[in-house]
């Protein structure tokens, strides 16, 4: 398809309900290709729920109702023709808590390939190596690929999870507070990584850490009580927010 869409990712007037709870209220925003978008806001503001719209992880929860449109490359991912597993192949996800499978390091990275029907041995080996290199983990694990992933440190486990997500060659990577369970050194490694991955992927990252949002992102969205209060370039939002609630939040007055 040669047509060029204006935005890589876009949400149009999205409402989401958990049973009777209105968790996302009319969210419309867009993220450009090869940029990092940070979602910030106090706990329970809907930023993680919003993130999970784009690989349809909210569908796994009983009693969720979603209205509106979510577009990736201009196509509504909630339309009936979209197959969820195909979508999730294009949209990788990294979770808050490092969650490698209790399998070997190699098998963790190969998992996404195997479940998507790739069984060619050399192809899998190449992809595993490339993904681990992209996730800046290769040098640390190349001699122990057959060892259990559970033996790695928390920071290494999280980079392994990033490698695992990259192995299936997504174009979008969703990160749900990827560094919140890690120590400062591991955190800075993950941040460097996000900065490097930007050239190939479009990344949305949920974070509680305002400095982190400032360091890694191009644009930042501030969510509060299920609403998108402000969305702007990160520089602008952190230095000159236009809403007082944003101002109060980033200066630490609440949340």
């Amino acid at each position, binding site marked *: 398809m040669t047509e060029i869409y204006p935005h890589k990712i876009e949400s149009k007037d999205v409402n989401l309900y958990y049973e009777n709870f209105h968790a996302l209220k009319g969210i419309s925003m867009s993220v450009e290709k090869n940029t990092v978008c940070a979602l910030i806001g106090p706990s329970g503001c809907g930023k993680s729920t919003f993130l999970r719209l784009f*690989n349809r*992880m909210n569908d*796994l929860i*009983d009693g969720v109702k979603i209205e509106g449109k979510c577009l990736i490359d201009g196509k509504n991912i909630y339309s009936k023709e979209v197959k969820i*597993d*195909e*979508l*999730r*192949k294009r949209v*990788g*996800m990294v*979770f808050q*808590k490092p*969650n*490698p*499978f*209790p399998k070997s390091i190699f098998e963790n990275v190969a*998992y*996404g390939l*195997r*479940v*998507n029907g790739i069984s060619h041995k050399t192809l899998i080996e190449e992809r595993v190596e490339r993904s681990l290199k992209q996730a800046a983990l290769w040098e640390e694990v190349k001699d122990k690929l057959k060892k*259990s992933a*559970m*033996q790695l440190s928390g920071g290494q486990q999280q980079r392994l*999870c990033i490698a*695992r*997500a990259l192995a*299936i060659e997504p174009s979008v990577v969703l990160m749900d507070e990827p560094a919140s369970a890690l120590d400062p050194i591991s955190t800075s490694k993950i941040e460097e990584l996000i900065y490097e991955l930007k050239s190939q992927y479009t990344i949305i990252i949920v974070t509680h850490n305002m400095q982190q949002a400032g360091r890694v992102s191009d644009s930042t969205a501030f969510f509060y009580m299920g609403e998108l209060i402000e969305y702007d370039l990160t520089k602008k939002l952190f230095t000159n927010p236009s809403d007082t609630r944003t101002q109060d939040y980033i200066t630490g007055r609440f949340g």
Partner: protein
Amino acid sequence: MDYYKRKLIVEGIAFWTFRSLSFIVIGILFSILGFIIYKGSSVISWEFITEMPKDGMTKGGIYPAIIGTLCLIGGSIIFAFPIGVMSAIYSNEYTKHGYFRSFIQLMTSNLAGIPSIVFGLFGMALFVNQLGFGDSILAGSLTLGLLVLPIVIRTTEEALKAVDDNFRQASFALGATKLQTIHRVTLPIALPNILTGLILSIGRVSGETAPILFTVAAYFLPKLPTSIFDQVMALPYHLYVISTSGTNINDSRAMAYGTALVLILIVLILNLTASIVRRYLSKKNNIN
């Protein structure tokens, strides 16, 4: 008396009550074991476990009953394990939380509460008569399988519930389907705990008398089965027979203790094997 002193005394009484009660329980267990070993060990010999019973079951061995019990353990597990595990997978992984899931689980619990003699009667009516299997290993195994099905289902459900949801989510997020997730992630992680269900079922199957009474057990049958439609002797029923209705109960008393000891040893050995496999699998998962 001051408050702190009273608190200390109450704490002490509670501690010693709990401790002595648990010691009593262990004591009872050991005295049963000790009694059986003391009474039975003199009978146990190579001949006892490899020969047919002789002289109105007062001499010879219990070989056919051992083989019979092993057949019934194997047969019922082959039947109950796949069905139990699969239905637990259905109720835990596929149904949503709500009335239907609760209903399935309530039914499972009810099934577990049915007295085993009722299973025996049902097995006789359905498998022996209606389906025409006759008194046979097949009928007995199916009946015992029904009996342990709830145990297998319940422990499998618990094992699946214990699998951290993060693993499932990670799998789905990589584009895996539900079945792929169950097959490659959830089941391998739950397997050590599912094996607990297997261990419990083996113990249950090998000891039950009532369900096999009308469906498979032979009073005296000094030959080995050649097909699944043959009757067999079984250890618990043999024990019952030689203790209550043998030709010479006094002479066969020692044989009874020997039989009991063999029964306990079989369960012990099978449990031990299953524990070793379980430990090996847990280590392989290395989750903690």
